[in-house]
Protein backbone atom coordinates (compact mmCIF):
# COMPACT_ATOMS: atom_id res chain seq x y z
CA UNK A 1 0.00 0.00 0.00
CA UNK A 2 2.83 2.38 0.81
CA UNK A 3 4.97 1.52 -2.19
CA UNK A 4 5.69 4.57 -4.36
CA UNK A 5 3.91 2.96 -7.33
CA UNK A 6 0.73 2.44 -5.35
CA UNK A 7 0.86 5.92 -3.91
CA UNK A 8 1.21 7.29 -7.39
CA UNK A 9 -1.80 5.29 -8.52
CA UNK A 10 -3.93 6.54 -5.66
CA UNK A 11 -2.77 10.14 -6.08
CA UNK A 12 -3.58 9.86 -9.76
CA UNK A 13 -7.16 8.98 -8.92
CA UNK A 14 -7.63 11.18 -5.85
CA UNK A 15 -9.37 13.95 -7.81
CA UNK A 16 -12.34 11.86 -8.87
CA UNK A 17 -12.93 10.30 -5.45
CA UNK A 18 -14.75 13.15 -3.63
CA UNK A 19 -17.38 13.48 -6.37
CA UNK A 20 -17.84 9.72 -6.80
CA UNK A 21 -18.03 9.16 -3.03
CA UNK A 22 -20.52 12.01 -2.68
CA UNK A 23 -22.85 10.35 -5.18
CA UNK A 24 -22.32 6.97 -3.54
CA UNK A 25 -23.14 8.30 -0.06
CA UNK A 26 -26.08 10.50 -0.97
CA UNK A 27 -27.60 8.63 -3.90
CA UNK A 28 -26.58 4.97 -3.95
CA UNK A 29 -27.02 4.47 -0.18
CA UNK A 30 -30.44 6.23 -0.20
CA UNK A 31 -31.51 4.10 -3.19
CA UNK A 32 -30.54 0.99 -1.23
CA UNK A 33 -32.65 2.32 1.62
CA UNK A 34 -35.66 2.67 -0.69
CA UNK A 35 -35.27 -0.97 -1.71
CA UNK A 36 -35.07 -1.93 1.99
CA UNK A 37 -38.14 0.18 2.86
CA UNK A 38 -40.15 -1.53 0.14
CA UNK A 39 -39.74 -4.80 2.09
CA UNK A 40 -40.79 -3.41 5.48
CA UNK A 41 -44.18 -2.92 7.18
CA UNK A 42 -45.72 0.54 6.98
CA UNK A 43 -45.96 2.84 9.95
CA UNK A 44 -49.27 4.68 9.74
CA UNK A 45 -47.64 7.97 10.82
CA UNK A 46 -45.22 7.82 7.90
CA UNK A 47 -41.96 5.93 7.72
CA UNK A 48 -41.61 2.22 8.36
CA UNK A 49 -41.73 -0.27 11.22
CA UNK A 50 -38.91 -2.78 11.73
CA UNK A 51 -39.49 -6.22 10.26
CA UNK A 52 -39.88 -7.92 6.92
CA UNK A 53 -42.98 -7.73 4.78
CA UNK A 54 -43.93 -8.15 1.15
CA UNK A 55 -47.25 -6.34 1.64
CA UNK A 56 -46.08 -3.39 -0.42
CA UNK A 57 -45.52 -5.51 -3.53
CA UNK A 58 -48.72 -7.49 -2.94
CA UNK A 59 -50.61 -4.18 -2.82
CA UNK A 60 -49.51 -3.44 -6.36
CA UNK A 61 -51.50 -6.37 -7.70
CA UNK A 62 -54.06 -7.13 -5.02
CA UNK A 63 -56.62 -5.13 -3.14
CA UNK A 64 -57.44 -6.04 0.46
CA UNK A 65 -61.15 -6.29 1.08
CA UNK A 66 -62.85 -5.31 4.33
CA UNK A 67 -63.03 -8.95 5.43
CA UNK A 68 -59.26 -9.27 5.02
CA UNK A 69 -59.30 -11.38 1.86
CA UNK A 70 -57.30 -10.32 -1.23
CA UNK A 71 -58.68 -9.68 -4.65
CA UNK A 72 -56.77 -9.12 -7.88
CA UNK A 73 -56.90 -5.45 -8.77
CA UNK A 74 -55.72 -3.76 -11.93
CA UNK A 75 -55.91 -0.20 -10.52
CA UNK A 76 -52.16 0.23 -10.05
CA UNK A 77 -51.22 -1.72 -13.16
CA UNK A 78 -53.42 0.76 -15.00
CA UNK A 79 -51.32 3.61 -13.61
CA UNK A 80 -48.14 1.83 -14.73
CA UNK A 81 -49.65 1.37 -18.17
CA UNK A 82 -50.88 4.98 -18.36
CA UNK A 83 -47.39 6.23 -17.45
CA UNK A 84 -45.75 4.11 -20.15
CA UNK A 85 -48.41 5.13 -22.67
CA UNK A 86 -48.19 8.86 -21.91
CA UNK A 87 -44.37 8.81 -21.82
CA UNK A 88 -44.26 6.85 -25.12
CA UNK A 89 -46.75 9.12 -26.85
CA UNK A 90 -44.90 12.20 -25.57
CA UNK A 91 -41.63 10.81 -26.95
CA UNK A 92 -43.19 10.21 -30.38
CA UNK A 93 -44.75 13.67 -30.57
CA UNK A 94 -41.55 15.32 -29.35
CA UNK A 95 -39.60 13.41 -32.01
CA UNK A 96 -41.99 14.43 -34.78
CA UNK A 97 -41.66 18.08 -33.73
CA UNK A 98 -37.93 18.13 -33.02
CA UNK A 99 -36.62 16.39 -36.12
CA UNK A 100 -37.57 19.14 -38.61
CA UNK A 101 -36.51 21.85 -36.15
CA UNK A 102 -33.08 20.29 -35.53
CA UNK A 103 -32.52 19.70 -39.25
CA UNK A 104 -33.53 23.26 -40.06
CA UNK A 105 -31.24 24.78 -37.40
CA UNK A 106 -28.27 22.64 -38.50
CA UNK A 107 -28.63 23.91 -42.09
CA UNK A 108 -28.31 27.58 -41.09
CA UNK A 109 -25.19 29.74 -41.24
CA UNK A 110 -23.14 29.54 -37.98
CA UNK A 111 -24.22 32.88 -36.47
CA UNK A 112 -27.91 32.20 -36.95
CA UNK A 113 -27.40 28.62 -35.74
CA UNK A 114 -25.91 29.80 -32.44
CA UNK A 115 -28.77 32.24 -31.96
CA UNK A 116 -31.48 29.65 -32.67
CA UNK A 117 -29.81 27.15 -30.32
CA UNK A 118 -29.81 29.72 -27.55
CA UNK A 119 -33.51 30.32 -28.25
CA UNK A 120 -34.17 26.59 -27.81
CA UNK A 121 -32.13 26.49 -24.61
CA UNK A 122 -33.65 29.45 -22.75
CA UNK A 123 -37.10 27.97 -21.99
CA UNK A 124 -35.36 24.70 -21.09
CA UNK A 125 -33.65 26.49 -18.20
CA UNK A 126 -36.67 28.53 -17.15
CA UNK A 127 -38.32 27.04 -14.11
CA UNK A 128 -40.22 23.88 -15.04
CA UNK A 129 -42.94 24.56 -12.46
CA UNK A 130 -43.55 28.02 -13.90
CA UNK A 131 -43.53 26.75 -17.47
CA UNK A 132 -46.14 24.15 -16.57
CA UNK A 133 -48.19 26.62 -14.56
CA UNK A 134 -48.21 28.90 -17.62
CA UNK A 135 -50.23 26.26 -19.44
CA UNK A 136 -52.94 26.54 -16.76
CA UNK A 137 -53.32 30.20 -17.77
CA UNK A 138 -53.74 29.11 -21.39
CA UNK A 139 -55.90 26.02 -20.93
CA UNK A 140 -58.29 26.69 -18.05
CA UNK A 141 -61.99 27.50 -18.62
CA UNK A 142 -61.37 31.22 -18.16
CA UNK A 143 -57.97 30.96 -19.83
CA UNK A 144 -56.45 32.57 -22.90
CA UNK A 145 -57.41 29.88 -25.44
CA UNK A 146 -61.05 29.57 -24.34
CA UNK A 147 -61.33 33.36 -24.04
CA UNK A 148 -59.93 33.81 -27.54
CA UNK A 149 -62.23 31.20 -29.09
CA UNK A 150 -65.28 32.65 -27.29
CA UNK A 151 -64.43 36.17 -28.47
CA UNK A 152 -64.18 34.87 -32.04
CA UNK A 153 -67.56 33.25 -31.63
CA UNK A 154 -66.19 29.79 -32.42
CA UNK A 155 -67.51 28.37 -29.15
CA UNK A 156 -70.24 29.49 -26.76
CA UNK A 157 -69.18 27.59 -23.66
CA UNK A 158 -65.54 26.90 -22.70
CA UNK A 159 -63.94 23.69 -23.94
CA UNK A 160 -62.76 21.41 -21.13
CA UNK A 161 -59.03 21.62 -21.86
CA UNK A 162 -57.46 21.51 -18.41
CA UNK A 163 -57.37 18.36 -16.26
CA UNK A 164 -57.26 16.04 -19.26
CA UNK A 165 -54.67 13.60 -20.59
CA UNK A 166 -54.31 15.98 -23.54
CA UNK A 167 -53.30 18.78 -21.19
CA UNK A 168 -50.69 16.53 -19.55
CA UNK A 169 -49.33 15.67 -23.02
CA UNK A 170 -49.14 19.32 -24.04
CA UNK A 171 -47.20 20.13 -20.88
CA UNK A 172 -44.83 17.17 -21.21
CA UNK A 173 -44.14 17.76 -24.92
CA UNK A 174 -43.47 21.39 -24.09
CA UNK A 175 -41.07 20.46 -21.29
CA UNK A 176 -39.10 17.84 -23.20
CA UNK A 177 -38.86 19.18 -26.77
CA UNK A 178 -35.44 20.81 -26.14
CA UNK A 179 -34.15 17.46 -24.82
CA UNK A 180 -34.77 16.03 -28.30
CA UNK A 181 -33.80 19.03 -30.44
CA UNK A 182 -30.32 19.37 -28.92
CA UNK A 183 -29.00 15.79 -29.38
CA UNK A 184 -30.43 15.52 -32.92
CA UNK A 185 -28.93 18.89 -33.77
CA UNK A 186 -25.59 17.64 -32.44
CA UNK A 187 -25.64 14.79 -34.98
CA UNK A 188 -26.96 16.90 -37.86
CA UNK A 189 -24.24 19.48 -37.36
CA UNK A 190 -21.62 16.79 -38.07
CA UNK A 191 -23.31 15.68 -41.26
CA UNK A 192 -20.98 16.60 -44.10
CA UNK A 193 -22.27 18.98 -46.71
CA UNK A 194 -20.42 16.87 -49.30
CA UNK A 195 -22.64 13.85 -48.54
CA UNK A 196 -25.75 15.88 -49.31
CA UNK A 197 -24.14 17.27 -52.46
CA UNK A 198 -23.18 13.77 -53.60
CA UNK A 199 -26.76 12.61 -53.09
CA UNK A 200 -27.99 15.63 -55.01
CA UNK A 201 -25.57 14.92 -57.87
CA UNK A 202 -26.88 11.36 -58.02
CA UNK A 203 -30.40 12.74 -58.51
CA UNK A 204 -31.70 11.64 -55.10
CA UNK A 205 -35.01 13.26 -54.28
CA UNK A 206 -35.69 14.85 -50.90
CA UNK A 207 -37.29 11.72 -49.46
CA UNK A 208 -34.30 9.62 -50.52
CA UNK A 209 -31.90 12.16 -49.05
CA UNK A 210 -33.84 12.02 -45.81
CA UNK A 211 -34.18 8.23 -45.78
CA UNK A 212 -30.59 7.34 -46.68
CA UNK A 213 -28.48 10.22 -45.36
CA UNK A 214 -30.27 12.45 -42.86
CA UNK A 215 -32.10 9.77 -40.86
CA UNK A 216 -29.09 7.42 -40.36
CA UNK A 217 -26.99 10.42 -39.33
CA UNK A 218 -29.65 11.62 -36.90
CA UNK A 219 -30.37 8.20 -35.39
CA UNK A 220 -27.91 8.29 -32.45
CA UNK A 221 -29.31 11.71 -31.53
CA UNK A 222 -32.85 10.34 -31.84
CA UNK A 223 -31.98 7.49 -29.44
CA UNK A 224 -30.34 9.86 -26.94
CA UNK A 225 -33.22 12.33 -27.15
CA UNK A 226 -35.82 9.58 -26.77
CA UNK A 227 -34.14 8.32 -23.59
CA UNK A 228 -33.84 11.87 -22.22
CA UNK A 229 -37.58 12.31 -22.86
CA UNK A 230 -39.07 8.92 -22.05
CA UNK A 231 -37.33 8.28 -18.71
CA UNK A 232 -38.10 11.59 -16.98
CA UNK A 233 -41.65 11.48 -18.44
CA UNK A 234 -42.30 8.12 -16.79
CA UNK A 235 -41.74 9.59 -13.35
CA UNK A 236 -42.95 13.12 -14.03
CA UNK A 237 -44.80 14.78 -11.20
CA UNK A 238 -45.56 18.39 -12.12
CA UNK A 239 -47.51 17.96 -15.38
CA UNK A 240 -49.87 15.22 -14.12
CA UNK A 241 -50.32 17.10 -10.84
CA UNK A 242 -50.99 20.58 -12.27
CA UNK A 243 -52.40 19.91 -15.76
CA UNK A 244 -53.98 16.51 -15.13
CA UNK A 245 -55.61 17.81 -11.96
CA UNK A 246 -54.12 14.89 -10.02
CA UNK A 247 -56.92 12.70 -11.36
CA UNK A 248 -54.98 11.20 -14.24
CA UNK A 249 -52.58 9.51 -11.85
CA UNK A 250 -49.13 8.58 -13.15
CA UNK A 251 -46.21 6.83 -11.42
CA UNK A 252 -44.66 10.14 -10.35
CA UNK A 253 -47.65 11.45 -8.44
CA UNK A 254 -48.55 7.98 -7.19
CA UNK A 255 -45.14 7.74 -5.50
CA UNK A 256 -45.39 11.31 -4.25
CA UNK A 257 -48.83 10.68 -2.69
CA UNK A 258 -47.59 7.60 -0.81
CA UNK A 259 -44.78 9.59 0.76
CA UNK A 260 -46.99 12.59 1.59
CA UNK A 261 -50.74 12.31 2.14
CA UNK A 262 -51.21 8.53 2.05
CA UNK A 263 -48.28 7.91 4.41
CA UNK A 264 -47.61 4.46 3.07
CA UNK A 265 -43.85 4.65 2.57
CA UNK A 266 -43.25 0.96 1.80
CA UNK A 267 -45.85 1.02 -0.96
CA UNK A 268 -44.38 4.24 -2.37
CA UNK A 269 -40.92 2.66 -2.14
CA UNK A 270 -42.14 -0.47 -3.97
CA UNK A 271 -43.53 1.68 -6.82
CA UNK A 272 -40.22 3.60 -6.91
CA UNK A 273 -38.34 0.28 -7.16
CA UNK A 274 -40.69 -0.76 -9.98
CA UNK A 275 -39.91 2.50 -11.80
CA UNK A 276 -36.18 1.94 -11.26
CA UNK A 277 -36.46 -1.57 -12.71
CA UNK A 278 -38.23 -0.22 -15.81
CA UNK A 279 -35.50 2.42 -16.26
CA UNK A 280 -32.75 -0.17 -15.73
CA UNK A 281 -34.34 -2.47 -18.34
CA UNK A 282 -34.42 0.39 -20.84
CA UNK A 283 -30.75 1.07 -20.08
CA UNK A 284 -29.84 -2.58 -20.58
CA UNK A 285 -31.68 -2.78 -23.91
CA UNK A 286 -29.88 0.33 -25.06
CA UNK A 287 -26.46 -1.03 -24.07
CA UNK A 288 -27.29 -4.34 -25.78
CA UNK A 289 -28.35 -2.61 -29.00
CA UNK A 290 -25.28 -0.37 -28.97
CA UNK A 291 -22.99 -3.41 -28.51
CA UNK A 292 -24.71 -5.36 -31.26
CA UNK A 293 -24.40 -2.45 -33.64
CA UNK A 294 -20.74 -2.06 -32.73
CA UNK A 295 -20.11 -5.81 -33.22
CA UNK A 296 -21.88 -5.63 -36.57
CA UNK A 297 -19.59 -2.87 -37.70
CA UNK A 298 -16.48 -4.80 -36.72
CA UNK A 299 -17.65 -7.96 -38.50
Amino acid at each position, binding site marked *: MSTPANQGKLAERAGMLP*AALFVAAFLLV*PLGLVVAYSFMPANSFGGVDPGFSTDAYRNVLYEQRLDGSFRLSAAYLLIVWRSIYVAGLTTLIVLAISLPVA*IYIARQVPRRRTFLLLMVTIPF*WANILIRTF*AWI*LLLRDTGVINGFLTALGVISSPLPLLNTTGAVLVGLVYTFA*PFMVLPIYGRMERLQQSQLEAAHDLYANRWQVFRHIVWPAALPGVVAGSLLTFIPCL*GSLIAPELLGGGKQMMLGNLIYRQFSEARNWPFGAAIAVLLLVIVALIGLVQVYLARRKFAGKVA
Partner: protein
Amino acid sequence: MARNSHSRIIGQFPGFGKFTFLFFVYLYLPIIVVMVLSFNASPAATVWGGFSLEWYGKALANADLRTAAWNSIQIAVSAALLSTVLATFAANTLHRLTGRKDATLAQGVIMLPLVLPEIVMAVALLSFFSSLGVSLGKGNLIIAHTLLCLPFAFLPIRARLQGMDASLTEAAADLYARPFSRFRHVTLPMLMPGIVSGFMLAFVVSMDNFTVSLLVSQAGSTTLPVFIFGMLRVGVTPDVNAASTLIILASTALVVVSFLLAGRNPK
Protein backbone atom coordinates in the same frame (compact mmCIF):
# COMPACT_ATOMS: atom_id res chain seq x y z
CA MET B 1 -21.39 33.93 -51.10
CA ALA B 2 -23.51 32.93 -54.09
CA ARG B 3 -21.93 29.49 -54.08
CA ASN B 4 -22.46 29.23 -50.38
CA SER B 5 -26.15 30.08 -50.59
CA HIS B 6 -26.51 27.59 -53.44
CA SER B 7 -24.94 24.75 -51.47
CA ARG B 8 -27.15 25.62 -48.53
CA ILE B 9 -30.22 24.97 -50.62
CA ILE B 10 -29.15 21.36 -51.08
CA GLY B 11 -30.36 19.37 -48.12
CA GLN B 12 -32.88 22.03 -47.26
CA PHE B 13 -36.38 20.68 -46.78
CA PRO B 14 -39.30 22.89 -47.79
CA GLY B 15 -41.54 24.11 -44.98
CA PHE B 16 -39.08 23.30 -42.20
CA GLY B 17 -38.40 27.01 -41.70
CA LYS B 18 -42.08 27.79 -41.15
CA PHE B 19 -42.39 24.74 -38.93
CA THR B 20 -39.45 25.90 -36.82
CA PHE B 21 -41.09 29.31 -36.49
CA LEU B 22 -44.27 27.65 -35.16
CA PHE B 23 -42.14 25.59 -32.80
CA PHE B 24 -40.69 28.76 -31.31
CA VAL B 25 -44.19 30.22 -30.96
CA TYR B 26 -45.18 27.10 -28.99
CA LEU B 27 -42.01 27.36 -26.91
CA TYR B 28 -42.41 31.02 -26.00
CA LEU B 29 -46.19 31.55 -25.97
CA PRO B 30 -46.74 30.36 -22.36
CA ILE B 31 -43.79 32.37 -21.07
CA ILE B 32 -44.99 35.50 -22.86
CA VAL B 33 -48.53 34.98 -21.53
CA VAL B 34 -47.23 34.82 -17.95
CA MET B 35 -45.16 37.97 -18.48
CA VAL B 36 -47.95 39.95 -20.14
CA LEU B 37 -50.53 38.94 -17.51
CA SER B 38 -48.14 39.96 -14.73
CA PHE B 39 -48.58 43.56 -15.92
CA ASN B 40 -52.35 43.27 -16.33
CA ALA B 41 -54.30 45.48 -13.92
CA SER B 42 -57.27 43.12 -14.22
CA PRO B 43 -56.91 39.79 -12.44
CA ALA B 44 -58.74 38.04 -15.30
CA ALA B 45 -56.59 36.26 -17.88
CA THR B 46 -58.75 37.29 -20.81
CA VAL B 47 -59.46 40.96 -20.03
CA TRP B 48 -56.77 43.61 -20.41
CA GLY B 49 -57.34 46.12 -17.61
CA GLY B 50 -54.40 48.36 -18.41
CA PHE B 51 -50.74 48.33 -17.41
CA SER B 52 -50.05 47.91 -13.73
CA LEU B 53 -47.21 47.02 -11.37
CA GLU B 54 -49.68 46.16 -8.62
CA TRP B 55 -48.93 42.43 -8.67
CA TYR B 56 -45.21 43.03 -8.41
CA GLY B 57 -45.85 45.16 -5.34
CA LYS B 58 -48.03 42.42 -3.91
CA ALA B 59 -45.50 39.67 -4.64
CA LEU B 60 -42.59 41.64 -3.22
CA ALA B 61 -44.58 42.57 -0.11
CA ASN B 62 -45.20 38.89 0.67
CA ALA B 63 -42.76 38.15 3.51
CA ASP B 64 -43.04 34.35 3.12
CA LEU B 65 -42.26 34.65 -0.57
CA ARG B 66 -39.19 36.75 0.22
CA THR B 67 -38.02 34.22 2.81
CA ALA B 68 -38.47 31.39 0.30
CA ALA B 69 -36.52 33.36 -2.32
CA TRP B 70 -33.71 34.00 0.14
CA ASN B 71 -33.65 30.30 1.12
CA SER B 72 -33.42 29.37 -2.56
CA ILE B 73 -30.53 31.74 -3.17
CA GLN B 74 -28.57 30.52 -0.14
CA ILE B 75 -29.11 26.88 -1.10
CA ALA B 76 -28.30 27.48 -4.77
CA VAL B 77 -25.06 29.35 -4.05
CA SER B 78 -23.91 26.65 -1.60
CA ALA B 79 -24.89 23.73 -3.83
CA ALA B 80 -23.39 25.34 -6.94
CA LEU B 81 -20.10 26.05 -5.15
CA LEU B 82 -19.85 22.56 -3.69
CA SER B 83 -20.78 20.79 -6.91
CA THR B 84 -18.43 22.94 -8.99
CA VAL B 85 -15.46 22.18 -6.71
CA LEU B 86 -16.24 18.44 -6.77
CA ALA B 87 -16.78 18.55 -10.53
CA THR B 88 -13.57 20.47 -11.27
CA PHE B 89 -11.34 17.92 -9.54
CA ALA B 90 -13.31 15.00 -10.96
CA ALA B 91 -13.28 16.36 -14.53
CA ASN B 92 -9.56 17.07 -14.41
CA THR B 93 -8.73 13.57 -13.14
CA LEU B 94 -11.15 11.80 -15.45
CA HIS B 95 -9.82 13.72 -18.43
CA ARG B 96 -6.32 12.44 -17.64
CA LEU B 97 -7.54 8.87 -17.16
CA THR B 98 -9.83 8.79 -20.22
CA GLY B 99 -10.49 5.24 -21.39
CA ARG B 100 -9.53 3.51 -18.13
CA LYS B 101 -12.15 1.22 -16.69
CA ASP B 102 -12.35 2.78 -13.21
CA ALA B 103 -12.52 6.26 -14.74
CA THR B 104 -15.44 5.19 -16.94
CA LEU B 105 -17.17 3.77 -13.87
CA ALA B 106 -16.56 6.94 -11.83
CA GLN B 107 -17.90 9.09 -14.66
CA GLY B 108 -21.00 6.87 -14.87
CA VAL B 109 -21.58 7.32 -11.13
CA ILE B 110 -21.20 11.10 -11.38
CA MET B 111 -23.70 11.24 -14.25
CA LEU B 112 -26.28 9.08 -12.41
CA PRO B 113 -28.31 12.03 -11.02
CA LEU B 114 -28.95 13.04 -14.63
CA VAL B 115 -30.41 9.71 -15.75
CA LEU B 116 -32.48 8.59 -12.77
CA PRO B 117 -36.11 9.71 -12.52
CA GLU B 118 -36.20 12.69 -10.18
CA ILE B 119 -39.11 11.39 -8.11
CA VAL B 120 -37.08 8.28 -7.23
CA MET B 121 -34.14 10.42 -6.07
CA ALA B 122 -36.57 12.60 -4.14
CA VAL B 123 -38.06 9.74 -2.11
CA ALA B 124 -34.61 8.15 -1.69
CA LEU B 125 -33.25 11.37 -0.16
CA LEU B 126 -36.38 11.81 1.99
CA SER B 127 -36.01 8.23 3.31
CA PHE B 128 -32.30 8.77 3.87
CA PHE B 129 -32.62 12.00 5.84
CA SER B 130 -35.56 10.75 7.89
CA SER B 131 -33.75 7.51 8.76
CA LEU B 132 -30.78 9.50 10.05
CA GLY B 133 -33.14 11.10 12.51
CA VAL B 134 -31.28 14.41 12.45
CA SER B 135 -32.18 17.34 10.30
CA LEU B 136 -29.66 19.88 9.11
CA GLY B 137 -32.47 22.16 7.95
CA LYS B 138 -31.21 23.85 4.79
CA GLY B 139 -28.19 21.52 4.92
CA ASN B 140 -30.41 18.64 3.77
CA LEU B 141 -31.42 20.62 0.70
CA ILE B 142 -27.85 21.74 0.04
CA ILE B 143 -26.71 18.10 -0.03
CA ALA B 144 -29.65 17.09 -2.25
CA HIS B 145 -29.09 19.97 -4.68
CA THR B 146 -25.32 19.40 -4.82
CA LEU B 147 -26.08 15.87 -5.97
CA LEU B 148 -28.47 17.07 -8.69
CA CYS B 149 -26.13 19.86 -9.82
CA LEU B 150 -23.04 17.68 -10.08
CA PRO B 151 -23.55 16.46 -13.70
CA PHE B 152 -24.46 19.98 -14.85
CA ALA B 153 -21.31 21.44 -13.29
CA PHE B 154 -19.23 18.53 -14.59
CA LEU B 155 -20.22 18.59 -18.27
CA PRO B 156 -19.05 22.12 -19.28
CA ILE B 157 -15.75 21.64 -17.41
CA ARG B 158 -15.17 18.28 -19.07
CA ALA B 159 -16.02 19.78 -22.48
CA ARG B 160 -13.60 22.64 -21.89
CA LEU B 161 -10.82 20.16 -21.01
CA GLN B 162 -11.46 18.26 -24.23
CA GLY B 163 -11.05 21.43 -26.25
CA MET B 164 -7.83 22.39 -24.46
CA ASP B 165 -4.35 22.23 -25.88
CA ALA B 166 -2.49 19.45 -23.98
CA SER B 167 0.90 20.82 -25.06
CA LEU B 168 0.64 23.67 -22.53
CA THR B 169 0.51 21.36 -19.49
CA GLU B 170 3.23 19.25 -21.11
CA ALA B 171 5.38 22.36 -21.50
CA ALA B 172 4.81 23.16 -17.82
CA ALA B 173 5.85 19.62 -16.92
CA ASP B 174 9.00 19.98 -19.05
CA LEU B 175 9.77 23.11 -17.05
CA TYR B 176 9.63 20.99 -13.88
CA ALA B 177 6.31 22.38 -12.59
CA ARG B 178 4.96 20.01 -9.95
CA PRO B 179 1.50 18.51 -10.57
CA PHE B 180 -0.28 20.90 -8.20
CA SER B 181 1.36 24.01 -9.54
CA ARG B 182 0.69 22.77 -13.08
CA PHE B 183 -2.97 22.55 -12.14
CA ARG B 184 -2.96 25.87 -10.29
CA HIS B 185 -1.09 27.97 -12.86
CA VAL B 186 -1.84 26.32 -16.20
CA THR B 187 -4.94 24.12 -16.16
CA LEU B 188 -7.11 26.17 -13.79
CA PRO B 189 -6.84 29.54 -15.60
CA MET B 190 -7.60 27.87 -18.92
CA LEU B 191 -10.51 25.98 -17.39
CA MET B 192 -12.03 29.09 -15.82
CA PRO B 193 -14.72 29.78 -18.46
CA GLY B 194 -15.86 26.15 -18.18
CA ILE B 195 -15.90 26.37 -14.39
CA VAL B 196 -17.87 29.62 -14.38
CA SER B 197 -20.30 28.20 -16.91
CA GLY B 198 -20.66 25.01 -14.85
CA PHE B 199 -21.23 27.03 -11.69
CA MET B 200 -23.96 29.10 -13.33
CA LEU B 201 -25.76 26.09 -14.77
CA ALA B 202 -25.57 24.40 -11.36
CA PHE B 203 -26.98 27.57 -9.76
CA VAL B 204 -29.90 27.62 -12.20
CA VAL B 205 -30.56 23.89 -11.74
CA SER B 206 -30.72 24.39 -7.98
CA MET B 207 -32.92 27.51 -8.20
CA ASP B 208 -35.33 25.72 -10.54
CA ASN B 209 -35.46 22.38 -8.79
CA PHE B 210 -38.92 21.41 -7.68
CA THR B 211 -39.55 17.69 -7.17
CA VAL B 212 -36.64 16.89 -4.86
CA SER B 213 -37.12 20.16 -2.95
CA LEU B 214 -40.83 19.42 -2.45
CA LEU B 215 -40.06 16.19 -0.61
CA VAL B 216 -36.85 17.15 1.18
CA SER B 217 -37.72 20.70 2.34
CA GLN B 218 -39.18 21.22 5.78
CA ALA B 219 -41.07 23.98 7.52
CA GLY B 220 -38.10 26.34 7.80
CA SER B 221 -36.41 25.55 4.52
CA THR B 222 -39.10 26.07 1.87
CA THR B 223 -37.61 27.03 -1.48
CA LEU B 224 -39.14 29.40 -4.01
CA PRO B 225 -40.61 26.79 -6.40
CA VAL B 226 -42.07 24.82 -3.47
CA PHE B 227 -43.62 28.01 -2.10
CA ILE B 228 -45.09 28.91 -5.50
CA PHE B 229 -46.53 25.39 -5.76
CA GLY B 230 -48.24 26.05 -2.43
CA MET B 231 -49.65 29.34 -3.80
CA LEU B 232 -50.92 27.53 -6.93
CA ARG B 233 -52.72 24.95 -4.81
CA VAL B 234 -54.69 27.71 -3.09
CA GLY B 235 -55.58 29.29 -6.42
CA VAL B 236 -53.91 30.91 -9.39
CA THR B 237 -53.54 34.58 -8.46
CA PRO B 238 -51.83 37.28 -10.55
CA ASP B 239 -49.03 37.84 -8.02
CA VAL B 240 -47.79 34.34 -8.97
CA ASN B 241 -47.37 35.73 -12.51
CA ALA B 242 -45.26 38.60 -11.19
CA ALA B 243 -43.04 36.32 -9.11
CA SER B 244 -42.75 33.91 -12.05
CA THR B 245 -41.73 36.70 -14.43
CA LEU B 246 -38.94 37.78 -12.08
CA ILE B 247 -37.67 34.20 -11.79
CA ILE B 248 -37.78 33.63 -15.57
CA LEU B 249 -35.86 36.86 -16.21
CA ALA B 250 -33.23 36.00 -13.61
CA SER B 251 -32.56 32.49 -14.95
CA THR B 252 -32.60 33.71 -18.57
CA ALA B 253 -29.95 36.31 -17.76
CA LEU B 254 -27.78 33.67 -16.07
CA VAL B 255 -28.11 31.20 -18.94
CA VAL B 256 -27.28 33.81 -21.56
CA VAL B 257 -24.15 34.87 -19.64
CA SER B 258 -23.14 31.23 -19.13
CA PHE B 259 -23.71 30.53 -22.83
CA LEU B 260 -21.55 33.49 -23.87
CA LEU B 261 -18.76 32.41 -21.49
CA ALA B 262 -18.82 28.79 -22.65
CA GLY B 263 -18.86 29.89 -26.29
CA ARG B 264 -15.54 31.72 -25.99
CA ASN B 265 -12.79 29.67 -27.53
CA PRO B 266 -9.99 28.32 -25.34
CA LYS B 267 -7.05 30.71 -25.53
